[in-house]
């Protein structure tokens, strides 16, 4: 069978890549997720032209909420210029003609991120969309989704507490490093995506709406603005974020901008020296070179 339809980018792809029904379904699922803070709303995730695990869930949310007048920031590991962030941003620009992109956190109306929440506090004018590999914190203790759903419904997180207790018994320390189980609005415990523990407190009473998209696992969930988010821990065991201190206990500083209030990436230089640098590149650049340096808001893209 011959198909004579010509395939050009403008006729082959609608605004936002997804067909309109898909976007509507996703927006409805987002509304439900906002209405039930922390609840994992199942949805019919679509295949995107990048790998499952590269942020296809968050990308579907982004494409469903952005319009031509939005300004978008995409980061990966805190960096705007990480290969995956570049790739996603380029795809969104290509399929959403008119949209602006930026690296400046405060200039963005929609932020898509993998593994970090920006250092600069977000506002009620912004939506932060996080990429999620594992939406369910109970997967640590229960592999079957059917059982996990019942456990969530009953707010039965006993086995998670046991896991934390066992950690304390064995290591005198809770060993969960990232994806720290966090209770939202006193009921559902969610997986905050692989953000470090450093970023978990930013969820609590966040001014921005925080959305989570798990494409492969077909779930959407949310921390609505000004909603309580508490990492699971014991009364006598405080929740602890990553520490960046030298042998004498002094807070390490970013070697570029000197910040002592940011999450640091650890590098070993070619000479074998261990150095630290801000993971949030926009934050780092605006501190070291002034805010203007961090702006490379691209011109409106006419696809």
């Amino acid at each position, binding site marked *: 069978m011959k198909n004579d339809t010509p395939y050009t980018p403008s006729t082959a792809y609608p605004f936002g890549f997804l067909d309109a*029904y898909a976007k509507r379904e996703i927006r409805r699922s987002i509304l439900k997720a906002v209405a039930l803070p922390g609840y994992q709303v199942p949805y019919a995730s679509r*295949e995107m032209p990048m*790998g*499952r695990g590269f942020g296809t869930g968050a990308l579907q949310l982004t494409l469903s909420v952005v319009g031509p007048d939005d300004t978008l920031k995409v980061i990966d590991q805190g960096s705007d210029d990480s290969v995956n962030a570049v790739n996603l941003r380029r795809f969104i620009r290509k399929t959403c003609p008119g949209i602006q992109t930026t690296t400046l956190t405060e200039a963005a109306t929609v932020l898509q991120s993998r593994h970090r929440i920006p250092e600069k506090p977000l506002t009620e004018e912004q939506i932060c969309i996080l990429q999620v590999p594992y939406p369910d914190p109970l997967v640590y203790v229960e592999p079957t*989704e059917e059982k996990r759903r019942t456990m969530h419904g009953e707010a039965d997180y006993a086995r998670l507490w046991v896991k934390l207790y066992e950690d304390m018994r064995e290591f005198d320390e809770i060993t969960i490093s990232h994806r720290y189980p966090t209770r939202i609005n006193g009921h559902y415990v969610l997986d905050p995506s692989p953000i470090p523990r450093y970023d978990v407190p930013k969820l609590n009473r966040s001014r921005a709406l925080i959305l989570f998209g798990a494409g492969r696992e077909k779930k959407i969930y949310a921390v609505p603005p000004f909603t309580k988010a508490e990492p699971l821990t014991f009364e006598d065991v405080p929740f602890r974020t990553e520490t960046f201190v030298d042998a004498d206990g002094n807070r390490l500083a970013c070697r570029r901008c000197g910040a002592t209030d940011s999450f*640091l990436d650890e590098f070993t230089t070619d000479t074998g020296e261990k150095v630290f640098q801000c993971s949030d590149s926009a934050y780092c650049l605006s501190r070291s070179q002034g805010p203007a340096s961090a702006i490379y808001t691209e011109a409106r893209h006419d696809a």
Partner: protein
Amino acid sequence: MAYVAIQGGQRATEEAARLSEYLRTEQGIEGRPVSLDDIKYQLRGLHSRILSEGGLYHPDLAALAIKQSMGDPLEASFALRAYRSTRPRRMETAAHDTSRMRLVRRISAAFKDIPGGQMLGATPDYSLRLLRFDLMDESPEAFQEIAGTWMENLNADDVPDTFPKVLDLLREEGLLASSDNDGSEEAFDITRQPMIFPVPRSAALQSMARGETGSLLMIAYSNMRGYGDVHPTVGEVRVGYLPVELPHPVTGTPVEIGEVLMTECEVVAMYEGGDDAQAQPRFTVGYGACFGHNEVKAIAMAILDRALQKGMQDGAANPSEDPEFVLLHIDGIDSMGFCTHYKMPHYVTFQSDMDRLRTTQSKKERDL
């Protein structure tokens, strides 16, 4: 300092794409771009697999996907599947009767002779897998000659339009339960609804129909080898072109809109008792079907369908009977994507891991 230091990712990805494009055309003056027809006609096995795993019956675009991915089956299915996301689903077909398939092959392992006859068709099953060195430097003339003379002594009218289904013989004899599904039940659509377990059989069948061949084969093989007890007999494998009908937008009467090449397999499995004490024991059935000519996939799917039905009824005794285990791990797009994602930077989470290990180590040191 690696590929994310702080800037440079944009250029790196662009150069990587350019390099891939160079590799695709590396033959230079000696090369010629492979045509979509070359792929459709000469790489049939791969093309069928992409149609099936891509989950979109579009022979031209499947060939394009193969071309641009340089023959990587996972990548090609992926591109086809992603294209699917840009298209709305406007209509649904009614259930189709596969006895109307225009067959190119059908065999039964259950009976020596079957109504309509065994029809071996084109199959490598009984060929010697010896390398054909004569094809290493095949001349275009010899190549064209074969197809040019093929139809000379054949009568196209010899082939009947329909063949009865082998399983109907067993049904007539009461060895098999008559189907309780008249086709009117609405099918689950995994492309429009997430699977929330337990899921209906139609969701399982649809997942498997676009599942990755190797993944289906692996789990079905575990059942064949002893992690399960389907013990299948291939009642029928049929390959052919199924006419597809859609309701006419005005009159509502079914109108043929084209045909799809597909493979269908029905396996007969060990018998079990009926729902009540009076009911006669009967054989059980497993069903597999997919786009394209993919026999291994259709047979593996039929075995898994049987295994899953048993698991849903009696509880899963092994992985192949566990619907969540099977259905959530057979999709090639999902699994290859997630596997690939581990190549992306994980600096932040690894930093966090090191923090936990160092803290735990220092506590241990203090205690010692």
